[in-house]
């Protein structure tokens, strides 16, 4: 049993032919030896092979292990990579979202911008924006209409370039003159268009961005104002006719031209005459106000000694002062006063209004003092009384049209509240200043000054009228 497999094996191993092995009997033992050696050799070889094989197997196993490990590692890497990929995907999505958000934001901003632009465009007021370098950087539709031009024609132009266009000239002049800013300045742009100009500096905390010019159409207001003034003027003139008829009739009755009258009749007629006089003076005040509003108030300026103007008024009040038992004094200056340029009639009216107030609001036994002083460049007039005074909280309104102090109304029901308004306007028109000091219950002092002009200043002053 054993041989066969060995033969077979031998045959297989060295391929020796069977005939060669089955030789003679001597040969047989020798062959056997050889066979055994051969077997041994083969066996050894087999062992060696087996060993090699097991080594190989071991190595193979190691390799397999290694491979497995690598596979695991790769698997891990794959997982890691997958998660990175996922992260990347997430980031990408996040980025996309952000981009979408940004796009939304941009759209919103765009919308807002368009909204603002639409508002600016359709604003009833005209808007001009000048940049830091005083170049025109924004013009809205209303401004285009006001100036009868297209944005493209003027955009980016500087003030001096704009000044060349006749319609822009008055505005440019105004802007160049009033660099500090303009607030509600009237500008007669063209026939039937009066604008009210205001400027607003555009600044951030850090820097100046330029200037916004607001053009507000006040043509209608001006027309209404003019109509109102004309109406008052007309009404006042119309009222004057019957008032003078009444005045004259009463006078003729009082003079006895239409027959003798009893003392009772005289008394009533006298009172009616006085009432009528007050009405006339109210109408005159109203007419003065309308003339102030129409800007045609001062008329003839003449060089006069102001003392004479004051004397005239004071003389006309002598009886009234005496009747009211008021102490009166006119403190004239020792040095000779220079002559000043005034509208005599209007200046008389100022003194009259101030004296009238002083006399009316000072109780019997009180005192009224007029003083005249020469300042460095002006003549200062003051009138001090010991009268009722102006309540502190009402002092700032004292020069307002139709305003009367509450205590003044209590003392004297009559009064238009126009006297000081008229006085202030007259003094302003003479380039003077009017002010007062007053304490309720103690008295009031009104002051005004009128500048003394040197020859050349004087010519300049005259050209303003």
């Amino acid at each position: 049993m054993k041989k066969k497999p060995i033969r077979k094996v031998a045959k297989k191993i060295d391929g020796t032919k069977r005939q060669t092995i089955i030789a003679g009997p001597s040969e047989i033992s020798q062959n056997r030896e050889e066979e055994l050696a051969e077997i041994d050799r083969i066996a050894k070889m087999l062992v060696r092979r087996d060993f090699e094989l097991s080594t190989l197997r071991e190595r193979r196993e190691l390799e397999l292990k290694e491979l497995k490990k690598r596979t695991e590692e790769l698997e891990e890497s794959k997982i890691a990579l997958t998660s990175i990929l996922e992260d990347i995907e997430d980031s990408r999505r996040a980025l996309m979202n952000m981009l979408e958000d940004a796009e939304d934001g941009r759209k919103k901003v765009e919308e807002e911008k368009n909204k603002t632009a639409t508002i600016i465009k359709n604003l009833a007021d005209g808007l001009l924006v000048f940049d830091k370098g005083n170049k025109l950087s924004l013009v809205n539709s209303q401004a285009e209409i006001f100036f009868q031009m297209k944005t493209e024609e003027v955009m980016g132009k500087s003030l001096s370039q704009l000044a060349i266009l006749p319609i822009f000239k008055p505005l440019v002049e105004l802007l160049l003159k009033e660099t500090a800013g303009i607030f509600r300045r009237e500008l007669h742009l063209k026939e039937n268009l009066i604008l009210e100009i205001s400027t607003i500096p555009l600044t951030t905390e850090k820097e100046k961005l330029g200037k916004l010019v607001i053009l507000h159409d006040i043509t209608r207001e001006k027309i209404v104002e003019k109509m109102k003034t004309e109406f008052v003027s007309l009404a006042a003139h119309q009222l004057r006719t019957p008032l003078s008829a009444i005045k004259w009739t009463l006078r003729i009755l009082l003079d006895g031209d239409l027959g003798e009258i009893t003392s009772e009749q005289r008394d009533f007629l006298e009172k009616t005459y006085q009432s009528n006089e007050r009405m006339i003076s109210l109408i005159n005040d109203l007419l003065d106000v309308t003339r102030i509003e129409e800007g045609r108030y001062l008329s003839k300026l003449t060089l006069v000694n102001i003392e004479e103007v004051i004397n005239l008024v004071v003389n006309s009040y002598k009886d009234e002062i005496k009747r009211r038992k008021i102490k009166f004094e006119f403190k004239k200056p020792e040095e000779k006063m220079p002559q000043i340029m005034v509208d005599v009639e209007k200046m008389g009216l100022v003194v009259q209004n101030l004296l009238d107030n002083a006399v009316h609001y000072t109780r019997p036994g009180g005192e009224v003092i007029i003083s005249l002083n020469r300042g460095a460049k002006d003549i200062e007039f003051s009138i001090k009384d010991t009268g009722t005074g102006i309540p502190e909280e009402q002092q700032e309104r004292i020069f307002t049209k139709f305003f009367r102090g509450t205590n003044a109304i209590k003392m004297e029901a009559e009064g238009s509240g126009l006297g000081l308004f008229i006085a202030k306007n007259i003094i302003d028109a003479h380039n003077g200043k009017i002010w007062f000091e007053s304490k309720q219950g103690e008295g009031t002092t009104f002051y005004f000054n009128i500048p003394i002009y040197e020859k050349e200043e004087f010519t300049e002053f005259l050209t303003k009228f």
Partner: protein
Amino acid sequence: MKKRTKSSSPHKKHMAKKILIIEDEEIVLGLLQKKLSQEGYEVSVARDGEEGLKKMREIKPDIVLLDIIMPKMSGFEVMEEMQKDSGLKKIPVIVVSNSGQPVEIDKARELGAKDWLIKTEFDPQEVINKVKKQLKNL
């Protein structure tokens, strides 16, 4: 009555000077007419500028009292017409108006008016005084 006798004396002195009042306001017109007649003047009246000019040419008054705002023809227009007419040019005019703006007064002066009275500021007696003063200057 006293007044009347008083006023009858200048009548002779003046040799009845002729006054034309051009005024559309009835009361003022009536009062002036009465007052001036009492003073002994020969008074004629007209109620608008046109009638005034017509009467002026007819009666050749010694002095004219002239209102400014009147129907048909204003006082200014009357004076303009008077300036063009050598026969009327020299007749002194006293304007008796409701208004009294310096510009108006200046304009009237340029047109030859001698004086300007604002009705609300004057009494009829003062008008008489102004008339007397003007007539004395003749």
